[in-house]
């Protein structure tokens, strides 16, 4: 129990560590930055949860951003028409359409998930743009402040908390969650045990739509405006969440609680970004350092086993020399 507690504390210390580093090296970075970091982590956390439904099953999906924008556009239009109920319903419908489409296409076309997701990105982006033009004033949808207040900070923290609880329950307390993890670990073995792996992947894609819904609500409420993007513009929206999920997939080896680790991963990334801004670094340097940071984190975590083995061999050699 003590060891487990130590492990949890150790993992949770990571964002505090990063925060402390910037606290001392960046003027203007301090306790007052914490609400900004938390607020900015919410949407990427929701998208990260959507991606985390799929990535453990060995799949790659670039479409959560496009699906989230479609949900935000439809939710905004319906919200303007019929109020808060329309906002929620529209965001859910828009986000789930993409989830259903990608699930069906992957299930029946039997082509790589990356290819399917790229196709869905193009279709969802075009659909968002067309819906905005047909039913709104253009590809930008704006909602009034009273609607936007439904899911902006700090209420978006509750949204993410709800999403995390749903994710935790499905992943750790249901058969589907176990099967998704197992599919990523050894799909062949699972097939030979008689599990319908295609069905598991299908359900994983559908599940990700729920978290895209949470993301869509928060996206349009964050600034009250959402713009449909084309030419794969939404793909840039998934890179930060993806980084958070990659960090989480390493942290989860230390403490197995994926939603918490995704949240911690996003907090770390947002802390780093805000730290860079506080240091006045240019956009180019920010991107370079973030890329290096990610390589270091991933490199260290992927190679911890190998480093432990090197240390063990060194100790054995030392002991052998002493004995001789």
């Amino acid at each position, binding site marked *: 129990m003590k060891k487990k507690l130590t492990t949890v504390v150790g993992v949770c210390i990571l964002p505090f560590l990063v925060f402390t580093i910037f606290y001392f090296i960046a003027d203007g970075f301090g306790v007052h*930055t914490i609400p900004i970091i938390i607020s900015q982590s919410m949407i990427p956390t929701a998208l990260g949860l959507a991606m985390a439904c799929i990535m453990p099953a060995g799949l790659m999906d670039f479409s959560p951003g496009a699906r989230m924008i479609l949900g935000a556009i439809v939710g905004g239009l319906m919200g303007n028409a019929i109020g808060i109920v329309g906002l929620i319903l529209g965001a859910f419908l828009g986000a789930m359409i993409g989830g259903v489409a990608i699930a069906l296409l992957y299930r029946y076309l039997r082509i790589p998930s990356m290819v399917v997701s790229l196709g869905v990105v193009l279709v969802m982006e075009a659909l968002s743009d067309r819906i905005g033009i047909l039913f709104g004033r*253009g590809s930008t949808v704006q909602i009034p402040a009273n609607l936007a207040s439904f899911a902006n900070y700090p209420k978006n923290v509750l949204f993410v908390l709800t999403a995390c609880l749903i994710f935790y329950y499905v992943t750790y307390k249901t058969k589907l969650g176990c099967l998704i993890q197992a599919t990523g670990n050894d799909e062949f073995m699972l097939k030979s045990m008689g599990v319908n792996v295609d069905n598991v992947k299908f359900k994983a894609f559908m599940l990700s739509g729920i978290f895209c819904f949470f993301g869509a609500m928060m996206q349009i409420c964050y*600034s009250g405006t*959402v*713009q449909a993007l084309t030419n794969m513009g939404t793909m840039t929206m998934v890179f930060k969440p993806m980084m958070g999920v990659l960090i989480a997939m390493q942290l989860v080896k230390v403490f197995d609680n994926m939603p918490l680790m995704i949240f911690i991963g996003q907090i770390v990334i947002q802390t780093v970004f805000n730290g860079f801004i*506080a240091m006045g670094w240019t956009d180019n340097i920010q991107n370079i350092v973030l890329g290096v940071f990610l390589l270091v984190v991933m490199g260290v975590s992927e190679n911890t086993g190998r480093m432990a083995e090197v240390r063990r061999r060194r100790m054995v050699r030392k002991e052998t020399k002493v004995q001789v």
Partner: protein
Amino acid sequence: MKKRFLALLVSFVLVVTLSAGCGSETTPANTSSGGTQDGSGSTSDDTVHFKEYTIAVPFPETGLTSFEIMRSNCDLLENATNGKIINAPSDLTPDGVLSFVESQIAAGVEGLIICPPSDSVLPTVTQLCEEAGVYWGIALRSISDPEIKSLVEASPYYVGNCYEDEEQAGYECGKWMGEQGYKKIAVISQAKGDTTCDTREVGLARACTEFGITIVGESRGHVQASDATAATESFLAANPDLDAIFYVGSAASGTHEATVKAIQDAGRGDDVKMVTIDFPDQMEANFESGIQVYAYALSCLTFDPYISLIKVINSIQGTPINEDGSPSSNTMSMFAIDNVKTAREYQTITGNPAYKFFDEEGVKQLLKLFNPDLDEVTLQKMIDEYKPI
């Protein structure tokens, strides 16, 4: 059953893709034009006949009022000149511009205008348009590279460009901020490599050196208003003594308003201001909030591409602006707004999607078939004398 369902789904996806992929084609507006329609379908003003044409412009229907103004003015032009002007999406990247040019040529247009983010795409655009016999012009940009400029201007299908002194715009804004005593500003701009914003930043850097202004942070390449909100929040948190947020340029909709709101929500409206190049859609409200204090731009962003469009139409009709067919280059003056009253006056333009740059008679003066005296010099004079208010 499964196969049937799959077939239905694929059909649905195809239909959605096809309908979403179509550019928004325009139908001539039901506005009265100066001429009358004769039996052959060409607009005639007794002896004037316009060849039918289709021109593509890279201003999709994003909801930006300036693009809607462009659309409204294009409708009037279509009626006056027997043509079709289509809005087609084109993002501000070299690949996006080339993709726009190739797809519009494939669609069979007779002309197009582009806003190239850098000079590097221009040789390819020149070649593509020459091979296809498509007239083309540049809007909102000038050509910096002398070699590329010579190559482009030698093409018989290049009609010319309209541009503004972007470096001076950046300098004027920096100078104004320096004169107000601002010492620390944060910058929001496009990604590096965008010619317009890079040029504006050169002017800004000059002013910062002259007036001792420090750029304490920057954020680039916003695609959503939420990106502007997040950047503004981060700037405010990191810089308790920030004087202003300066918008060099932004292609996303609603970003200026998002910044104003973020400043208000942070309770910093009294000490952090917003300065912009280009007039926001909600400029009046921004000035009334007391947060936007200065804006420097053309009266309407799309007046520049409108003039480039006029040049392309004239060339397609066989009457280029310059008699010898050489390209014409025209500059547009920007001006500043620094008070609510003027912002309110210009909001009647920037906030009115039906605003017309010229009425029907004014449009005729821009077409050589109606006005044979039109040339580069007289066109420049008309641009200089154009006063929207």
